[in-house]
């Protein structure tokens, strides 16, 4: 597979380390009333779609960017690649 890195351009996927569902960005608030339940869902419940999947890849053998890659898990077509930091900010994460 080839991942089109937003900064570095097309790179072979072997330069990357795969983590999993991009929902791992949405780490719950530890002070919420049901924090334990939220963390349980965050950590253990994942969709496993046959189709489009947003997932986290780490450019470990490259510039160390975490990326959110939108990939079709059936065809391996890659539809979009974003810097995870941008995605995290867009989803309201800060400090």
């Amino acid at each position: 597979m080839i991942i089109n890195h937003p900064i570095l351009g097309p790179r072979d996927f072997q330069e990357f380390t795969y983590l999993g569902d991009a929902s791992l960005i949405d780490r719950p608030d530890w002070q919420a009333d049901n924090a334990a339940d939220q963390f349980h869902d965050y950590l253990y419940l994942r969709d496993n779609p046959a189709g489009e999947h947003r997932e986290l890849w780490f450019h470990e053998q490259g510039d160390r960017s975490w990326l959110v890659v939108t990939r079709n898990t059936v065809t391996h077509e890659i539809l979009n690649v974003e810097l995870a930091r941008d995605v995290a900010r867009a989803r309201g994460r800060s400090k």
Partner: protein
Amino acid sequence: MTDAVMNAGRVAFQADGSTGARKGVQVNRLDGGLIKGGKPLNFTFDGKRFKGFEGDTLASALLANGVRLMGRSFKYHRPRGVLTSGSEEPNALVELRSGGRQEPNTRATVAELYDGLEANSQNRWPSLQHDFMAINDRFSNFLTAGFYYKTFMWPAAFWEKLYEPIIRKAAGLGSISFEADPDAYDKGFLHCDLLVIGAGPTGLMAALTAGRAGAQVIIADEDFLLGGRLNAETFGIGDLTGAAWVEQAQAELASMPNVRVMPRTTIIGAFDHGIYGAVERVSDHVLAPEAGKPRQILWRIYSKRAMLAAGATERPIAFENNDRPGVMLAGAVRAYANRWAVTPDQTVAVFTNNDDGHRTAADLIAKGVKVTAVIDTRAAAPKVEGAELFAGAQVVDTKGRLGLEWARVRLASGTTRDVPCGALAVSGGWNPNVHLTCHQRGRPAWREDIAAFVPAGDLPQHMSVAGAANGDFSTAAALRAGAEGAVAALSELGIEAKISDLPEAEDAPINVTPFWYVKEGKGRAWLDQQNDVTVKDVKLAHQENFRSVEHLKRYTTLGMATDQGKTSNMGGLAIMAELAGKQIPEVGTTMFRPPYTPVSFGVMAGRSVGEDFRPTRKTPSHKWAEEQGAVFVEVGQWLRAQWFPRAGETHWRQSVDREVLQTRNSVGICDVTTLGKIDVQGKDAAEFLNKMYANAFAKLPVGKVRYGLMLREDGIAYDDGTAARFAEDHFVVTTTTANAVLVYRNMEFARQCLFPDMDVQLISTTEAWAQFAVAGPNARKLLQKVVDPEFDISNEAFPFMGCGEITVAGGCRARLFRISFSGELAYEIAVPTRYGDAMIRKLMEAGEEFGAVPYGTEALGVMRIEKGHAAGNELNGTTSALNLGMGGMVSKKKDCIGNTLSEREGMNREDALKLVGFKPVNAADPVQAGAHLMNASGEVSAATDQGYITSAAYSPVLGCSIGIGFLKRGDSRKGEVIRAVNPLEGREIQVEVVSAHFVDPEGERLRG
């Protein structure tokens, strides 16, 4: 007609035909062909010496020398000859070369002849002509599909030890020498606009069209000669012969710097996003690789567009005894005659269901070979000049002990006729080579007019298919499709290509009437010759209710050999469809997977063999340690000194005990560079570490170090280390050796994905600093001799858990940490890696007056067990801070990775495992890591399990074996005597539960 008469006739004809200057003893060599100037080459087969010519394959050279018998079959040890002239060959598998270069299961059809080639037949004993295991053939009625499953069911224990080894020995292929391969294999990467797979008329036309348009083109072909079937046929292109046109095309391609022509290169797989795997056989056609050249190269080709122009493979017709040496595919017989100037025999018959088979008869007749009959299954067969035609007839049986002598033909009239022939050229039609189109789950579609599967729409991304691979079998159609395909592919890339005038070429349809197998006869008709699967086996599978083609394949093993059923799958499918009363497309095909043809392990491994299997990381003191005669141990990729034996020490324990005692009594030095180091800088660095570690870091003063425990988000402890604060906005974090990469990855994840606005930057500095632990009562005295005098490292100025930037040896930049893993007064001192070697020498020199010793990982381990420090055995992926006795460290006042879920009820049980120490009641008993803990009395069972021992060592300080581990409610059970059991080895000892801190529990030494 009797056998004797037949033989006499054949021999007589051979004598007639064996004239001509370059024949010599090559009784079946013809005139013409493409074997270039005819440079003679010597080779041996089963020790016998033969001659061939440059341009021959092993198969063509053997046939030229009158050798039809080339191997024994896999299961029945039937005599077998060559079936094909290409990579699809199922039968003619040989062992090539010898010693470290011995290569089993090599197809003689693709083994390019070179001077000195050495080949041996395989799967026979004692010889190819007299194979003892041929007895299997007598029992063939028993050895049908599923025989092993049904027969060797009982007793189950016999399978592994008795049945399987015997079966494997009897049924097999070639052998390996068990010597190391002396040759190099390389890997490489290529990029192109258009990859053309196959260099027949289609591929060459595509490459010419794309090359002329200026595109970056790679054209690859598995053959050593470009041209594909043009080399095997007599028809021309335009005014030129096929071969001449190929030469012209090749010359033009060679003149274009944007085109890379890769003969002897097989595209083995179509992978995601236009990436193709290719194996280039750089040196397989020579005795040994030239100096500096690899034997093979595994290429990864990144293509923007790819065109599959891989041609087609002829398929046989199954009939009784169709596996005798001499029964061959018609296209192969034609290829041997036209390209290699070889006929498999001087009398040949043809058996076909299509017009293409007739070409073989015509070409052989033109070369002066006697064609005894053309047997065509079609009643309306075209006329044949120069040979007898049996239209509407079938071959129903063959005879000949180690090679074909005659074929029995059932004529349309119903009578039989025995046709003398030393070779029978069989054509059942052609199958497009769709394999690569299926590597991304594509399924081919059935085309009725050619009675074959062709690629459907679901091709791998950016691949197109053209020519015979797409079912367009005529040369004219191939040229057109190649040119048009290249134009279409390039236009998608914005490159404009033009179709120049296409040359004239033959445009004949093949007119095939499907005919898969002859129904007459009770004997065996072979489908898959490599796995010895017959028509009968397919019928049996059907009878036993195997309905899916995938099940048929696995039950009968049809198509599961190294040829992936290139010549056999279609026949099996067709018979299965017929038995099930279905159409062939309803039955479908099995899945084709990479590699297209077998690939050697050597080229897959490339240079990653032996000590280069993976990178070796050496510590900065490695050279010095080698000089000391250190014994090394692999720790991940690192090589670390395990212990430093001294003269007179005969057992590792003597060295390790000495290193421990000398460190505890005076001073020891250990290279700890392998620990991960991460530089953390930024305004929010402290807050960031607060998130990373379970314990608090925000208030750590500058100049101080703190132990830190890292949790996974599920609350399990996964790493520990220290963080030293060198400035308000600058920390140096250490990790364990094993988790250096993981911790860094996780910290980057937190930084970018969880806290994207924190002002913090990370960089791994593991390789940038050489770090040494200096431990023992004389550690400070030693260091004072090395650290530059302006730095006060007295206990008052530089107390336990202090850190600072200093200089050593007269101005060399260094970092000093007062931390202790051994429990002694200890420091870790870091210098830039390039000074690491100088530093160890300096430290040892300064330590001489104290009798300083270097210590290795074993002594390090003993001392940390004596001190009760957790390491990898304790941070084993199941243990929490609570289990480790650090529950109180997990801050409840702040957010950190893992703290929320570490509060789960199940992880905070009242009877939770706690880290404690164990001493044997009988001091002579060894404590074993992995032993399970049981109460003093009662049953030994999983239900009564009280915990387990994680680390154990002989403590030279205590004079006995000790251990640490996890015990239910361990912290409240000190003094209790329990049992440590090892049911695997039948051991059980009594141990006393003690504090895990065996040495200096109060921690006075490290503060002194």
